[in-house]
């Protein structure tokens, strides 16, 4: 029964995002623009691009995610629909995870596909491309959880979007550091090391703790 409800939340949110294309197309375009500008700055120096390209792609993905996450609760908050979620007899943390799954399908998945494509554009080696895909596969869900918590905390504030970036970025730093560290070591001829396991461990910890925190933050924001 609860699975039906979660499924209907995911479907409803995806329908909503399909109608509000600006919420996710603009962050995706931003990611593409940031990465394509990068070779221009480095004057197409192939060695520098090969060295720093993976890190830039990771950063671009992080910034687009922060941008897009501002919408994850706002659309329903404005219309007073978030109260319907809070007042549901079903567990709020699970409902919010369903909302994040929809967000992940609409924005996380395209970013995950986009990142190796952009890497291909920068002529990164196949080993680096696969490392990029793998680290982002584990990293994006962690970043989304942290970002969503920030979005829930800044929900009632008029300048929430700006504050969100300030609140969320410090918490994202461990994920970003290990993610970039992992791809950089592959780019420098090494192998995927302990970083990917650390990323995975962080994801598990966040997955267990953050949904509950999001639920509490939302109740405070609505009260």
């Amino acid at each position, binding site marked *: *029964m609860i699975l039906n409800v979660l499924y209907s939340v995911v479907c409803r949110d995806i*329908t909503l995002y399909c109608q509000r294309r600006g919420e996710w197309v603009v962050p995706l375009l931003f990611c593409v623009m940031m990465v394509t500008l990068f070779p221009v700055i480095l004057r197409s120096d192939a060695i520098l691009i090969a060295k720093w390209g993976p890190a830039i792609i990771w950063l671009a993905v992080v910034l687009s995610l922060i941008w897009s996450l501002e919408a994850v609760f706002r659309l329903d908050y404005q*219309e007073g629909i978030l109260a319907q979620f809070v007042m549901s*007899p079903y567990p709020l943390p699970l409902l919010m995870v369903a909302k994040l799954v929809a967000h992940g399908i609409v924005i996380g998945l395209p970013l995950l596909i986009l990142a190796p494509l952009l890497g291909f554009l920068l002529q990164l080696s196949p080993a680096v491309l696969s490392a990029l895909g793998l680290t982002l596969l584990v990293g994006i869900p962690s970043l989304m959880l942290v970002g969503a918590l920030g979005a829930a905390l800044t929900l009632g504030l008029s300048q929430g979007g700006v504050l969100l970036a300030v609140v969320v970025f410090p918490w994202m730093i461990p994920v970003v550091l290990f993610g970039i560290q992992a791809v950089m070591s592959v780019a420098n001829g090494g192998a995927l090391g302990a970083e990917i396991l650390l990323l995975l461990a962080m994801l598990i910890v966040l997955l267990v703790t953050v949904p509950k925190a999001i639920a509490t933050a939302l109740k405070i924001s609505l009260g």
Partner: protein
Amino acid sequence: MLKLENLGYERENKTLFSNLTSEIPLGAFVNVVGQNGAGKTSLLKVLAGLWQPTTGSLVWDNKSLPLAAPLFWAELLYIGHESQLQPTLTPLQNLKGWIALNSLEGSAIKDIEAALVQVGLKAFMHLPAEILSRGQRQRVLLARLWVNPPRCWILDEPFTALDEAGILAVKHRFEEHLLQDGIIIVATHQPLQISAETTRHIELHST
């Protein structure tokens, strides 16, 4: 049964209401009356378990909120004064999403369609909610009263923007629900006449 024990609420150092004690049995109709800004909406939000009361507590079926909130919410229908409709989704999609969240049993799509027909929105069912007039949007929300509604209703100014026929239909629905041992708590500007076994009036005054 809903029990209010010494309920009080304060916002920005202003006491909106205090020492509200009342027992609301099944089949009771409660009319919250007051001027604009008297605190009707705040009272309803506290009664719905959405806001924490500053003093006192709320008891549903002998269990105290907020611990029993999920139990209470499974039997509660709350219609606030926010739009509660996603403007780009259709009335049908909006209601479907709401019922999925709010009701433990869920509802068949044809029941939702029937309810929308009932409130006179047959031609608007599949159009975006943003093109509806205010009265029609209110009708979409009120259609929920006809689709497998829970036991306890808390409605904030449900007659806003409704025409005469709409008001009559909703009042009629109230009486039906009260006969089936439902609880209805309604905030209005003007006192409302509804035939019920038990009727309570809560008057709020702006200070």
